[in-house]
């Protein structure tokens, strides 16, 4: 009788994941004993768990290991992204603490679900195997379907959740089929193993076709997650319908996780086929930029405008992703750095922008119209400043974090030899500045359309301040963040 040998588990690799998943399960139980009027406590406890997980990551810096038969990996790349996810989760929960009771939808499951979503994102960043990536993708998606429809009596929220679920299921099917094709072609699901098989050129032309078709389908799956055109069409409706803090999480955490795995997949498994996928993705990046930014131009609804804008930003990040796969080592490294830097800056910026919308949103009524922002400078100067900082950062104007992100993405694309694409990106960035600055103009130059009291509780203030300060600190002192991302090495170069 053969003995079943369980390979030793390197708990360092799974430490942060374990804390988040474990704490989420514990909270689910604790919530049973917390009266409904004190649900807030669960939110605070969730933040504590997030902080613990983030601190637990500090001694792990420098670790480069895998476990579970190479399915899960911890390296500087995934650790940096984990911290980013944890930061965005913490800020999202802080923003929700005020929002949920105000909208009458505060239930303790919300915070637990956010933690599970965070775990899903971490799986996407740490996954070194197609199965894990799929697991992460599905876990994240399912949690987000629920969260999107969380504002239960509100029909828009239900509709958004439904649409998200349908399109998500549609995309999920393609991913599974793609994984099957990849396995069929290479006999492996491990990203590095696939990459090595490709590098050995051991595939018959037929197998290679299967491999590329499978890769295309996996890209479709991640493309849906990051809202890359033409898989983006769910995004405006879902973003608009979801509760605003969830929209924030969707636009930053979920998107960043999608990019994390897309980047790892392309660089570790498909670097050898860069010549094939780079031009296609470049064309899609331009399409994404165009759709997102042109769509945002005519929006009067600020929440929907931010949804389109977040589609547009996916286009810029794709520039970095493409550059990261470049055969030229300098361009490739710059590509990885640029994706991370852009994600960091974009996360803080977008959370700040949605935070301002949350502050404006009163019970039962939306305050997303351009006119609701009019004269905000006179009503709430600090809110107006925070929003202005975020808008400038989204437009990529110094001294904000968004400027450095754009600078890095464009230089990476340029170094990778995508000169024309870079130029188009810069031109579209100029177009985008219009609708961001229109909001600034509304806030500072227009007369207030109506006078409404804007109560804000402390958690919201803290969350908003953190996000805005993050944008400014990244803008004024970018060196620590740049140093951090420069230590991240990915793929065959690692």
């Amino acid at each position, binding site marked *: 009788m053969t003995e079943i040998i369980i390979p030793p588990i390197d708990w360092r690799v799974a430490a942060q994941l374990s804390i988040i998943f474990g704490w989420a399960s514990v909270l689910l139980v604790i919530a049973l004993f917390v009266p409904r009027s004190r649900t807030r406590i669960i939110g605070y406890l969730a933040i504590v768990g997030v902080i613990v997980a983030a601190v637990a990551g500090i001694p792990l810096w420098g670790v480069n290991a895998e476990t579970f038969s190479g399915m899960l990996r911890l390296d500087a790349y995934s650790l940096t992204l984990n911290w980013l996810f944890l930061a965005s989760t913490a800020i999202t929960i802080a923003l929700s603490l005020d929002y949920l009771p105000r909208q009458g939808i505060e239930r303790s499951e919300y915070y637990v679900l956010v933690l599970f979503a965070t775990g899903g994102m971490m799986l996407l960043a740490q996954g070194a195997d197609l199965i894990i990536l799929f697991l992460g993708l599905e876990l994240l998606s399912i949690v987000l379907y629920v969260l999107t429809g969380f504002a239960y009596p509100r029909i828009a929220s239900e509709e958004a959740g439904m649409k998200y679920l*349908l399109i998500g299921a549609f*995309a999920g099917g393609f991913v599974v089929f793609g994984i099957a094709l990849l396995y069929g072609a290479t006999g492996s699901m491990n990203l590095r193993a696939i990459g090595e098989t490709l590098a050995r050129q051991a595939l018959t032309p037929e197998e290679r076709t299967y491999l590329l078709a499978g890769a295309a389908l996996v*890209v479709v799956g991640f493309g849906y997650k990051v809202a890359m055109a033409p898989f983006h*069409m769910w995004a405006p409706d879902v973003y608009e319908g979801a509760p605003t803090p969830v929209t924030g999480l969707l636009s930053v955490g979920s998107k960043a996780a999608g990019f994390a795995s897309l980047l790892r997949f392309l660089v570790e498994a498909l670097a050898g086929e860069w010549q094939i996928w780079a031009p296609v993705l470049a064309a899609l990046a331009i399409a994404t930029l165009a759709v997102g930014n042109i*769509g945002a131009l005519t929006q009067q609804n600020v929440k929907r405008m931010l949804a389109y804008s977040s589609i547009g930003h996916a286009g810029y990040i794709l520039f970095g992703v493409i550059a990261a796969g470049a055969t030229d080592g300098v361009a490739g490294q710059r590509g990885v750095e640029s994706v991370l830097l852009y994600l960091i800056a974009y996360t803080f910026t977008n959370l700040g922008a949605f935070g301002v919308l949350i502050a404006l949103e009163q019970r039962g009524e939306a305050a997303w119209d351009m006119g609701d922002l009019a004269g905000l400078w006179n009503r709430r100067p600090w809110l107006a400043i925070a929003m202005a900082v975020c808008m400038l950062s989204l437009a990529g104007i110094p001294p904000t974090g968004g400027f450095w992100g754009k600078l890095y993405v464009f230089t990476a694309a340029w170094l990778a030899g995508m000169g024309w694409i870079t130029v188009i990106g810069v031109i579209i960035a100029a177009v985008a500045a219009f609708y961001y600055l229109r909001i600034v103009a509304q806030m500072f130059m227009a007369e207030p359309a109506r006078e409404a009291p804007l109560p804000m509780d402390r958690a919201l203030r803290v969350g908003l301040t953190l996000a805005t300060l993050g944008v400014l600190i990244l803008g004024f002192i970018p060196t620590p963040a740049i140093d951090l991302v420069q230590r991240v090495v990915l793929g065959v170069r690692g």
Partner: protein
Amino acid sequence: MNWIIWLIPAFPLFGFVINALAVRRERDAGILASVMVGLSFAATIVAMVLLEGSPADAKRLTWTLWEWISAGDFRVAFGLLFDPLTAVMALLITGVGGLIHVYSIGYMHGDVRPVRFFAFMNLFVFAMLMLVMADNLLLLFLGWEGVGLCSFLLIGHYFDRRSVPPGINPSDAAVKAFVANRIGDAAMLAALFAIFANFGTLSFYDNPQLGISGYLDQAVAIAGDTIDLGAFGQLPLIAGITLLMLVAVTGKSAQFPLYTWLPDAMAGPTPVSALIHAATMVTSGVYLIVRNHTLFDQLTSAAPWVLVIGVMTAFIGATAAVAQLDIKRVLAYSTISQLGYMVAAVGMGAYVAGMYHLLTHGLFKALLFLAAGSVIHGIGGHQDMRRMGGLRDDLPTTFRLYVVGALALSGIFPLAGFWSKDEIIAHAWFDARSPLAAIILILTSAITAFYMGRQIGMIFFGRPRDPAMHGHESGATMRWPMIVLAGGAVIGGLINFPGLHWLNSYLRPVLQEPEVVYTLGMGVLATITTLLSAGAGYLGWKIYARDLEPRIRIGKEDPAFRYLGDLWRGMEFGWGLDWLYQRVVVRPYRAASVFLSQVVDREGIDGVLVDGTARGLVRLARGLRLLQSGYVRMYALMFLAGVIILITFFALRG
């Protein structure tokens, strides 16, 4: 102890900052500003004592605060230099500047914005000191631009008035000064570029502290180099650089053909005219040439542009001064003319003579401006000389001081102007062997005496022409600075008295100029010049105080217009240069601007490019909106299309 030279510019800067940020009261501002310039003067004296103690072969104090710019080969120190040439300039700036500050306390009493005035006066002194103390061209340029800025700000001191006597709009005058100076400054920048491109440094002398070499020491080495101008042939490098510098000088030092801004600059308060537009800023062009004399030495005889410009300016300025009716405009044109003397002197290589005249002129022209200010102040702000007349009884002290200044300016023996001006004329005649230049300069000297005689006659003699006017003498804060300056105007000639050569030997470490040997011929020339000037001066006084005096009427033409006609008109309008610029430059430029803004920009760029793009994008957005129908089946269809595209491109291309 070398650090002490930093205090010289630091005091006025401190005064500026405090005045700008903290001071609100007129009295505090004036006292603070004056004390700061006074302290700066004291620091200059201390630095001069220190300089005396340094070895004879290295008469130079330097202090580098930090390395200002370091980009590859381009290294510039933020360093100051204090050598004999800087010392005399700093002494003039802080000494005369301090007196003018004290005078301003009285003159600006009751002004609308005195704190602004004193703050900018201190800023000016700071910038001017940076200009003369910089140890490299870039820092000099910082001061050069700084004084230009202060000049702009102070000319426009009454920016809220539509018109100040004689009918100038102050903000227009300020802009005019600024724009005219821009032309010179652009040339200055080009000279900087040329020097860096060919010498690899902008430092005047070696800076051992940072290991930066100086370009003045290398000037001889590249004397033969040329600049390739393409189709225009070759230009000797030195000629190119010095020509660019000369253009810079014509702007800042109000030389032909850029001098037209200086008469209008009289729109500023009178102390500004005295300090900036007579004694210091306008002389910085002369300083620039003297500082770079090793470059200019390379071309003295071959390209006498500097001399030509100087002599022309001296003559044109003097003739224009004759026909002015505004008390300050006479002095403004006179300043242009005297600056011409200085530029002519340095153009002949007579650097000591140029500096000598710069210093004495700084004393007596400041005196004249202050005395003119005292007259204006004493009669309630009028500047038209036709309204004056017979003021010597009302303003006895001012009258005497004015006469002293006028005699010094006219070069009457034994006042300061006689010695310095004659040294230039003698140099032109004997050393430069340019009798034409010498004769023009002698003639100019006579004209100078004539217009000063005319001015004294019109202001102080004759009958009081305006019955409503009652003059009163100025107070002590205004009188005493003038008396000190008058003392300087009388004995200022001593600083380079023939036989003593103090200035010459003091500046020898910088200029290496031999002492002038005085001959009988020089004495004869000087005698002729001074006799001519004295005669012309008497004539000017006699005509305007006696012969034509009854025909001077308020608001009417000068009586001499009847005899000279168009010639007089030409002199009155500064030989029509303004008129010419207005038609050749300003109006076509305005027309082109209107065309560019209204047609090219509004219709073309805004209309077609900007609005057109916007309209196109909005249309595109509407199209995209149709796809975003809200139906999931539509989204799934697009999704599927994307899948097909991706698979096609991935699998079939590979």
